[in-house]
């Protein structure tokens, strides 16, 4: 079984690198992007299995990225998680409206991230 390819989107290099390192350590393949625009480009040229995106980014924020991804045929069902420091109901509603699969509060500890991913992938298999 080939490794799942995860797209990690965050404008902060340190956060992005840390996220990528946790994911790689857990046996996933990772591609990184620094904002929504770059993420969209990457998504169009590679087959991404899971997207993890920050909300506050220059050029294109996380919500807009989710909306744009959902408009692409290849990303109708791809799990997209919003990683956000804001876990308000309002933020969750916006995430849901944009088409995100779920949300996760930043900062997170590495174990929780991996638990979340396993739950996500389990859910996807069930649905498929």
């Amino acid at each position, binding site marked *: 079984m080939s490794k799942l390819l995860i797209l990690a989107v965050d*404008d*902060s*290099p*340190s*956060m992005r*690198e*840390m996220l990528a*390192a*946790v994911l790689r*350590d*857990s046996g996933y393949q990772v591609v990184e992007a*620094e904002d*929504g625009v*770059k993420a969209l480009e990457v998504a169009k040229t590679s087959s991404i299995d899971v997207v993890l995106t*920050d909300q*506050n*980014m*220059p*050029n*294109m*924020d996380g*919500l*807009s990225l*989710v*909306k*744009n991804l*959902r*408009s692409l045929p290849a990303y*109708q069902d791809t799990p997209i*998680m919003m990683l956000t*420091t804001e*876990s308000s*109901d*309002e933020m*969750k*509603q*916006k*995430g*849901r*409206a*944009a*088409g*995100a*699969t*779920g*949300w*996760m*509060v*930043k*900062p*997170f500890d*590495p*174990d*929780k991230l*991996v638990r*979340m991913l396993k*739950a*996500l992938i389990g*859910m996807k298999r069930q*649905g498929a």
Partner: protein
Amino acid sequence: MALDLSRFAKAFYEEAQDHLSAMETLLVAIDAGRGDDESLNALFRAAHSIKGGAAAFGHTQLAEFTHDLETILDRVRKREAALHKAMVDVILEAGDVMRAHVVALDTNTPPDAAAMEEIRMRLVDASGTEGEAITIAAAPPPAALEDSDDDWLAADEDDDDEDFGFFTEEKNEEVKEAAAAPVIEAKATPEHAPVVDATSIRVSVSKVDSLVNLVGELVITDSMLREGARAFDYDVQGRFAEALAQLERNTRNLQEAILGIRMIPMSFVFSRLPRMARDVAARLGKDIELEIHGEETELDKRLIEQVTDPLLHLVRNAIDHGIESPAARTAKGKPARGHVRVGARHQGGMVVITVADDGGGLDRARILQKASELALDADDSWSDADVWKLVFAPGFSTSAEVTDVSGRGVGMDVVRRNVEALGGAVEVDSVAGEGATFTIRLPLTLAIVDGMSVSVDGEVHIVPLANIEQSLRPADGQVSTVGGHPVLDLGGAYLPIVQLNETVSASDAANDGLLVVLEADGRRAALRIDDVLGQHQVVLKSLEDNYRRVPGFSGATILGDGRVSFILDASHIVNRAHRKGRTHARHDPALAA
């Protein structure tokens, strides 16, 4: 899971400082009335990113502090709160405290928790007070951060207590409909936002320096090869000669490319000016407008670092001593707001940095008076240009009162010394009532010197081309003796003649060999040499690093034949020659080779 977070912490510290610099630039721009919604958003994003990183790396106090700041900035960007001057002041200070905190974390020293708490209280206080609100333009609309147009669906999280959750499938159906139309909301990167360029990498300066050193060695090896090849017969060895020429070209290109890595834009130091100018002007009750040009001009990193203090000093000085108070300016019929213009540009292999103000200009009478108090050699008959040079004399300060802004008059001579230590020069031009312009000239890099190799008493020395005005074989009667010192008559100007080896008598010095007219610090002197050997680009090796500082020489280099050659410090030689000419100094060990 065992994951070492510390290796990302370093990246976070650097990043946080970049964000703090960006915040400062944005705040100063907003304060000056050049802000818009996008600057407010960028300001918020910077604080937000710092908070996120601080929390992720477990720096609770920094995260909480930034959270409070972020909350205020969020209200401002949503136009729920106005931004007034007092708040800008506190936020700027908050940035300073955050920077100090980050630096402390980075260097493993305990951060000043009390200072941070104090500013936090003031931050909260300031956001509650009223003041004159700063006008911030509403355009362009902050599309990327605007609320989505879709109808909000009821929240239905799987689990309220968890740190993550998924939206249910059935809701996603609705969502997909709502999101059917593609929304492209990409925008050009705002001018002042921190640009994270994915195509660049961070490399430690020591790695680049070791490349610079290695390529320097390669240049020397290349010269040695070519020197050695002279022994060959070029007709027979044509292809070898061709290969050698190619090696030389490639070596030069490689050297240029590597030195290019060290080049960074002047914006590195210019970005600090608006904040400093704002603070200084506020403290002195002056109204100034700072105009900056040529931020993109590139210069060697070490030069930029070392010219930073002199440059900051010149700008402080322009505001403190140059620009008059608003009342005085109005009385003179000038606009109340003073103008300080800082610029950088490339000019003939040098970088020229100027600091110009439209203040009162230098005061000739007061400079001369001060010069006589300090027992400096000065005379009312001197030209303006010569009088202005006095401000660079040690201990010179014309400010009537010593202010805490510009220090205690130790400024200008330190500026001059620092600039000259970099192989540069500083000069000033002034028009009474219209302002003064200080000009700093610097070489592009410290690593390479364009020089002429000359032989003196069997030794080969390098004279920097930048300091050579001409070389000549003196005609009969062109050399004479004034006050026991040999001088050269150059079109009516009498220049002192210097020899490196003081044991050679003056008449020998004058009659034998060639003279090279050196120019440094606006003065000239003629150096006696035996012969001109050639012109080279030499790789400068620091004497301090490899041996010790030797007055009269700015460094050393290795010649093609493997011999070590000293690079003459023209400024030192010219100044010694003039001092000696005046004071009839005895044997000067610094100039004795």
